[in-house]
């Protein structure tokens, strides 16, 4: 049993997602207990990637539902194919069938357009359903989601209840722009992913940017860890670290020195105030000091 978690962690690493024991355990339980996994954490720490890599490890389809305010049934669950319905009515006009019969016809299975939730429920083998940024949807949708997650079934008024043949493996992510309901939380396993440690981030960089010089990877990770200790408006996430690493490799930079850092700040700082701040920091203390601070972080 213990090996199962280890194997999962290794399998995730093989697919390019370096993770820790906490994440691997949570993912393992999500699959074995068939409970949805709710992942929270700051932006850019790879919450969404958990679902992606899980689908690759399970060798199954990833179905993604991106949430936003006003997300409703017709964009998340199903919609009718209206042009097809109208054409069908026209073609069957002379068939002499009753209106009730024709109505039942056009509101049937073959005129249904599947949206992510319905697709996940009707899948014939287990899929990974990613409900991304669930905090952006409104409470009404959250309540509806709760029903789907707990019953594994949905009701379409014209057709009836559709029950999942295979329960999907559900991953929800949230950036905590609003507090999710207690009911939803209770239904889920919970995982908080924070910014990675120096070691973990270094491992991620080396896994995702193959061919990067060991020294360079070490320096740039230290630098990022160093500036995360500054009070920034927008903290650089792992995604930004990787962007920067790719940029440095493309520029054939051999090390992170003041000049290189100044030129490429835009790769990982997305706020003018942060750029000014880090610039001043480099001018007064130098990149080496920031790298050192990042290495001392633990």
């Amino acid at each position, binding site marked *: 049993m*213990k090996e199962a978690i280890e194997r999962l962690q290794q399998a995730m690493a093989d697919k390019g997602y370096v993770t820790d*024991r*906490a994440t691997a355990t949570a993912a393992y*339980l999500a699959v074995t207990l068939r409970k949805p996994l709710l992942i929270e954490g700051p932006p850019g720490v790879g919450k969404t990637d958990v679902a992606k890599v899980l689908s690759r490890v399970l060798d199954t389809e990833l179905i993604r539902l991106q949430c936003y305010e006003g997300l409703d049934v017709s964009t998340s669950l199903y919609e009718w194919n*209206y042009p097809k319905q109208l054409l069908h*009515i026209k073609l069957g006009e002379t068939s002499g069938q009753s*209106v009730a019969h024709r109505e039942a016809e056009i509101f049937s299975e073959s005129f249904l357009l599947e949206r992510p939730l319905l697709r996940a429920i009707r899948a014939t083998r287990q899929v990974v359903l990613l409900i991304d940024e669930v905090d952006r949807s*409104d*409470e009404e949708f959250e309540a509806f989601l709760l029903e789907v997650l707990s019953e594994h079934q949905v009701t379409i008024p014209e057709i009836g209840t559709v029950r999942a043949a295979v329960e999907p493996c559900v991953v929800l992510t949230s950036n905590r722009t609003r*507090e999710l309901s207690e009911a939803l939380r209770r239904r889920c396993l919970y995982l908080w992913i924070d910014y990675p440690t120096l070691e973990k981030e270094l491992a991620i960089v080396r896994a995702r940017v193959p061919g990067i010089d060991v020294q360079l990877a070490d320096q740039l990770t230290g630098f990022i860890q160093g500036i995360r200790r500054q009070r920034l408006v927008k903290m650089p996430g792992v995604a930004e670290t990787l962007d920067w690493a790719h940029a440095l490799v493309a520029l054939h930079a051999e090390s992170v020195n003041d000049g290189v850092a100044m030129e490429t700040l835009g790769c990982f700082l997305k706020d003018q105030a942060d750029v000014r701040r880090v610039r001043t920091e480099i001018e007064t203390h130098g990149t080496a000091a920031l790298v050192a601070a990042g290495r001392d972080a633990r």
Partner: protein
Amino acid sequence: MTGEPLAFVTSFSRALRDRGLNVTPGTSIDAVRALAAVDIGDRRDVYFALRSLFATRLQDLAVFDAMFDEWWDTARPARRETGAERTKQSANPPIVAPWDEPKASTTSSFLTRWAASLAEAEDDATVPMAAPSTREATGVKDFRHYDDDDLHGLEDAAARIVKRLRSRRSRRWRIARRGPRLDARRIVRLALATGGDPIRLARRERKLRRTKLVVVCDVSGSMDLYSRFLLQVLYTLQHAFARVETFAFSTRLVRITDALTGDTYREALDTLARVEGGGWSGGTKIGESLESLRVGWPRLFDRRTAVIVLSDGWDTGDPEILGAALREIRRRAGRLIWLNPLLGNPSYEPLTRGMQAALPHVDVFAPAHDLASIERLAMHLSF
């Protein structure tokens, strides 16, 4: 871990629940299942597995960590009992019924005074006031300097707030005869009758967002000069807007929604004076009052509810009770707004113990000492 997983999970669940974590029997069952799926000899595995089940919020992690450390090695029954007893007390402080401790009322009831004369209240020198204002432009004039003529401005402000609450539109749709958008599903249905030609159109519009207001107004002595005008705002709100519930408190909480429905403000004040039943006094028990609001009217709050607390935060009660009550209210309500008239004073800092306990749970902390600040309130009600 020693002993049976089931016994461990059962008592551990209970201890966590006592510490305020959201633990249900379902969680415990899942925890037992989870322990069957990991190596229960491995502390790390058990820790991560149980954490993902029991800690459902970021704030829970610290509590869980502390409890897990304590429990992993020493899950002995004797210790468990005392531990649970102790934590139970700190997490759920007993609710002190404010009316159980009669207080010598040094301040006469302000409501009685208002109802009788609507007289200007005298200054209380020991209580800090919002910025003294000599400017006469309405909007920046401090409520302390208001006279009855200025009340019209307040009514207008309240009316604008009501309008704002009414006209908010949700992102959801509903059927409407003259809606701005077409409703494809119904058009297809209608087209059945016309041979597939969409001749009759169906429309839809955005649903109205039904925001509710719960207002809790501090009417203790230190708020005297302000509550008079704030109550005027509440009266107007109550009149123009059906979904408002209003409460007043000093040392105990009283629902005054019905009292505020009088035909005139004077009438409402008369009713209020009768409502009080001798319960008002000079002291302030914000925490206990909010706790009795939460316990006494549990169905009042949902995600569409904005809760507004009007108080200067001079609390003679236990700040812990205040913090706990606010945390619970915040959890259920859509937005928690604390309006403090003293915030109008630039040198004021919310250092009182009550304010310190309250601030972590409050979404909006704003002044309420002049007309402009009341109008800004409308902005916070769009959520």
